[in-house]
């Protein structure tokens, strides 16, 4: 198990280099002169040339790549034209909100999705199954941003049950940071009213963000459960007198979770992309909103920074899923 973890970690380090190679390449396909872009719209030719040699933009590509890597590692991720702050500072500032929203959403998707998939499989072809399947099929087709707008329209504006956007009300002071995650900090500091308010604000964006993932998870889990329930070891478990709860909820489900976890990983990636959309709609102060505002203003460095952060986050999650997969399926461990 340990060796398995070590091997996966090494692979992840390699992938990270690959990711940086990609962001480096992208920044070099931008049309126009990168030195001119970095210098800004009002620069003179002399300033552009100075920036060019200062940033090493006149050196060969490979060398530039290593300079780039060095910069990344040392925390120099460029500066945002829009916010005028270093990109690294902005990212650190905005990341917790995105982290909280995404983790909350995927948790909801898993906690609701897995049991609903099991229920749909056990009650196959009943009206309950059909209802669940309708949700799961249509959920994947809904555009996240449109769903966000519609729930905002109905539940926030029309019914007034939820706030329109933002993480907490303007007037409320956020709790003193421990983890920098709003909800967690509010809980840890015992500020329950802030916690409830934060929860109130996170519901609608989380619904919009998690719905396609929820739908996918239900579908995959249902299909896998149906397949597992037909397996011989289930016949044996029933023949030996095990309770239905154990047979379905443990013996079948543990096997079904293996492909389901792969889907969870995939969907998590879509969710990370989706934060861009949902944060836009709900004015959620996260990396997604930051990236969009930068992209619209052609502010280049922040987009690259956001790509690296979100890419790394995704890799970490896949890494964790791999580990969990290894604990669930002993055959994988044996293979390394």
């Amino acid at each position, binding site marked *: 198990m340990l060796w398995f973890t070590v091997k996966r970690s090494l692979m992840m380090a390699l992938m990270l280099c690959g990711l940086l190679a990609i962001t480096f390449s992208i920044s070099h396909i931008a049309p126009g002169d990168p030195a001119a872009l970095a210098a800004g719209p009002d620069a003179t030719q002399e300033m552009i040339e100075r920036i060019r040699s200062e940033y090493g933009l006149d050196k060969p590509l490979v060398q530039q790549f290593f300079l780039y890597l060095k910069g990344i590692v040392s925390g120099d991720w460029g500066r945002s034209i829009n916010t005028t702050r270093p990109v690294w500072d902005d990212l650190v500032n905005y990341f917790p909100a995105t982290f909280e929203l995404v983790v909350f959403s995927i948790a909801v998707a898993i906690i609701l999705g897995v049991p609903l998939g099991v229920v749909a499989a056990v009650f196959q072809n009943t009206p309950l199954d059909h209802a669940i399947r309708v949700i799961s099929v249509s959920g994947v087709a809904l555009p996240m941003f449109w769903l966000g707008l519609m729930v905002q329209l109905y539940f926030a504006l029309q019914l007034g049950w939820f706030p329109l956007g933002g993480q907490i009300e303007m007037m409320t002071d956020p709790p003193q940071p421990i983890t920098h995650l709003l909800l967690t900090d509010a809980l840890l500091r015992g500020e329950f009213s802030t916690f409830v308010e934060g929860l109130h604000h996170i519901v609608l964006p989380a619904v919009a963000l998690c719905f396609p993932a929820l739908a996918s998870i239900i579908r995959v889990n249902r299909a896998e459960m149906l397949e597992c329930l037909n397996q011989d070891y289930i016949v*044996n*478990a*029933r*023949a*030996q*007198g095990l309770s239905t709860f154990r047979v379905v909820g443990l013996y079948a489900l*543990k096997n079904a979770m*293996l492909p389901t976890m792969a889907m969870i990983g995939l969907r998590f990636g879509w969710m990370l992309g989706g934060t861009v959309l949902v944060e836009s709609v709900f004015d959620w102060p996260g990396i997604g909103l930051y990236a969009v505002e930068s992209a619209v203003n052609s502010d280049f460095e922040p987009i690259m920074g956001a790509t690296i952060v979100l890419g790394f986050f995704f890799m970490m999650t896949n890494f964790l899923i791999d580990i969990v997969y290894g604990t669930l399926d002993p*055959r994988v461990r*044996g293979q390394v």
Partner: protein
Amino acid sequence: MTDQPLLSIRDLSLEFDTFDGVYKAIDSVSFDLAKGESLGIVGETGCGKSVTAKSILGLLPSPPARWTSGEIRFQGQDLLSLGESGLKRVRGTDISMIFQDPMTYLNPVFSVGAQLIDVIMAHQRLQPRSTRMSRREARAHAVDMLGQVHLPSPEQQLDNYPYQLSGGMRQRVLIAMALSGAPRLLIADEPTTALDVTIQAQILALIKELVADLGLSVILITHDLGVVADLCDRVVVMYAGQVVEDARVADLFNAPHHPYTQGLLAAVPHPGRPASALTGIAGSLPNLLAPPSGCRFQARCPLASDACGRRPPLAEVGDRHHTACWNHDGGRHA
């Protein structure tokens, strides 16, 4: 003064609703099993022996399976009328089953010990609370059972996963699992078919030993007459979903009455009877989507006549020897 049979199946008929139509899997199957007896059910693939056995414990998913007639009485109680919860009390504690392929019948993601202990704990639910085993005691019982099936280093094996065990070892684990609840009846559905010949012999010897030690009654399903000769007291021969003959083993081999049984026995090559070609039974199985009325062996039977359009009953032809044939020749064909 005969004891009530342990298991009594009367006129059991079963159909499956399939894509291609209604598949009449078994037709009026009847036989008895006495206490302490080893009964073999023999027949070729598709003759309904496995399906009959699974019906006993209610292991066939109910659509598409439909029982159209008959009863299965275990110690007097009709198992077909028991619901799922009733059957759960029977499974593993009164009647247990082991299956053909030990690889697919063990859950690959749980350790062998976890599965065995789960089964033991499940049986404990039927005990009054005060006498129930704790998980620790269940673990000790599991080690004990693995020892009884002669699995080497049982304590260590508990933490192994099925993929780490050989075929023979897995089958032993499944046997231990089946016997952990001290059932009266063990149904073994082709337990050695998926194993190497040498392992087959070991598993059969194990079953024999356990039968003797534990006073088990056994129903052994197989297509191998040799296994039957080795292990069983009595035999039931099935063809295309019908019982065609049942007898004590010696009587069946010495004086088979039904033409199908005779054909089966003639087909077994014998070292003492050198021949230049294998004898078979001409023809092929009837299509059970549209089986012939009456005896299903008619099309291939050398003794067939018009009477065979009407189903022959299982008539007594000797001591505890029955045959379903209008035209049998009295067993002279042996």
